[in-house]
């Protein structure tokens, strides 16, 4: 989804006509504790929106606000055009959710659990049964329908939770760490499922601690800490904010040229005859280092800062003391202001 150059390749442009989630100055207090602290939300329809943060960052509280389960202490939340919490029931009718707990009933077979869930979306018994068959067949779970959740592996229970979320053909899918406990194959399958749903126009609100997963899957990412937005943008935009400690440079006979420079060369290590890794002290130092090499007669074909992963950017953001007020402007997709920014 979020490709290396920051474009939103898999996003359905036609679906981005309005916002699936909009929030302004959303704050939620629990007594003296401020769990969500004045965040603004603007998530267009038909994207995967990554909501990342360490434990206790306010992710779960935000999800509860988006479902209308909690009312904001201040600020406004609008989801799928419905103001919350007043329109919570209508929003929940168009939303599928995978929460931290799989939420399957110990005393019911998987079939009955799922049929109950389908019934909550207004399907009668026959239609609910048919819909369950469709979804479990699609997820490869048809042979486990008559088992109890206790008899299933954790990964299988998580799949069942995903199946339950899909029963109502949701316009918005909220996935709270959905790949927790899944093996690599199952996690990849779930990500593929998300990609397909988004291609069909569904908006996905995705939380995960797996930053590589967020990097591959999300069109937009927001990092929160203690209820405040620390940074936001496309994964590519956030990657640019990661600290840079080295630059990979490539050029013909580069190793020989750098050897010839002797002590005049910056600290470097060879990758191969035509490539080297040059140490820098932050991204700001890169232009001067490169300019020095060029001035010394070193021909360069390619210069690429290293270490700029979403994980590095995330760690940089969550270890910061305060939200970055110099946040770059949120991306502009099809004329819409998107992403999340601190007030």
């Amino acid at each position: 989804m979020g490709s290396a150059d920051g474009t939103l390749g898999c996003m359905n442009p036609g679906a981005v006509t309005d916002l699936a989630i909009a929030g302004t100055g959303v704050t939620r207090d629990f007594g003296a504790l401020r769990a969500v602290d004045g965040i603004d939300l603007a998530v267009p329809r038909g994207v995967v929106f990554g909501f990342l943060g360490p434990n206790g960052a306010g992710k779960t509280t935000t999800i509860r606000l988006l479902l209308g389960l909690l009312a904001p202490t201040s600020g406004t939340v609008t989801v799928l055009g419905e103001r919350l919490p007043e329109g919570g029931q209508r929003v929940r009718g168009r939303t599928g959710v995978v929460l931290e707990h799989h939420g399957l009933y110990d005393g019911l077979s998987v079939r009955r659990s799922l049929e109950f869930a389908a019934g909550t979306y207004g399907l009668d018994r026959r239609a609910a049964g048919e819909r369950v068959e469709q979804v479990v067949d699609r997820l490869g779970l048809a042979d486990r329908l008559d088992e109890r959740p206790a008899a299933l592996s954790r990964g299988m229970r998580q799949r069942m939770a995903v199946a339950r979320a899909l029963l109502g053909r949701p316009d918005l899918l909220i996935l709270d760490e959905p790949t927790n406990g899944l093996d690599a194959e199952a996690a990849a399958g779930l990500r593929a499922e998300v990609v397909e749903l988004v291609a069909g126009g569904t908006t996905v609100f995705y939380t995960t601690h797996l930053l590589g997963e967020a990097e591959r899957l999300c069109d937009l990412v927001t990092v929160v800490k203690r209820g405040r937005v620390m940074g936001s943008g496309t994964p590519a935009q956030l990657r640019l904010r990661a600290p840079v400690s080295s630059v990979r440079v490539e050029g013909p006979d580069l190793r020989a040229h750098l050897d010839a420079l002797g002590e005049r060369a910056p600290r470097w290590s060879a990758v191969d005859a035509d490539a080297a890794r040059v140490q820098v002290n932050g991204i700001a130092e890169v232009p001067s280092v490169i300019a020095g090499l060029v001035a010394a007669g070193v021909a360069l074909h390619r210069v690429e800062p290293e270490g700029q992963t979403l994980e590095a950017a995330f760690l940089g953001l969550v270890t910061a003391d305060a939200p970055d007020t110099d946040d770059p402007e949120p991306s502009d997709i099809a004329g819409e202001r998107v992403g999340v920014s601190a007030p």
Partner: protein
Amino acid sequence: MSSATRPAMPATTAPEGSAAAAQAREPEWRLVARKELGDLAGRVGRRAFIRTLVVVAIFGILVPLRFEGATNLPAFFAVFMAFLPARLVAIDALAGERERGTLEGLLASPLSDSAIATGKIVASTVYGASRGWLFLAVWSASAGILRLTGLIPGAPLPSPAVALGIALAGVVVAYAAAVFGIWQSAFAPSVRAIAESGGLLRLLIIVGVFFVGPWLLGLLSPDGRAPELPLPGSGRSVSLEALLAAGDIAPGSLWAAAAVLGTAGAAGLGLLTAATLRRCRREALALVTAVEPAAPRSRLARLRGFARSRSGGRN
């Protein structure tokens, strides 16, 4: 899930079922009630469930053997049998789901708050009342057999009117137990917390409703007579029946009093139901499932803190 090549589901189309299906769809409260009873049966397990029914049945057979003649005490047992299971299911309805991690999923569903609460109340009531009815049925059947066979000619057999009254009383008591239990369950962190809370008020209500009241009315007496209570200083004793007689309460006014008491009881039950539905609002429930607010300090703890601050922090 294992393959990205499966056809995508039409994610934005309306839910299946069309208008006809929507018309035939089950009311939300009934959907919840059915889920509650199914989940309960599954968790309790078939064997344990059958064992419970056998115990109730044995009790129903033994009662007419012991209490020859009077139907008061078996009737009381039948109502009590409706009360206990209804209460046990009700206190588990929200607190138990919270413990098992299913409550938030239920709240995140499109079901309305009132449908969730009503479904749980109905399930608890049905479960409790059915246990009371089972006892009533076994008792009546065994008493009838004992009479017919001549083994115990005086075995207590409720008349149809009395049996209907007991059955209705079982429903009312099970309903009250369900509403009160769910009201408690809405804010309790766990079922165990409710079971161990030992609230004095609850104890007084149970003792009053199920023991002192029935005893004063003579329901706990095998012969159905009210006990004689000594009047301090007078050297005399009096029973509730005697008090009614002394007050010259005519049968008509007794019915009027019963009607007033019944109306007051129904109003109280209505208020309790309204309070329960209000308490079951998502905000309150979600608060418990979300961040636990700091526990308020007890008055004693506040006084200790105050005393410490006055003594300059010395202990």
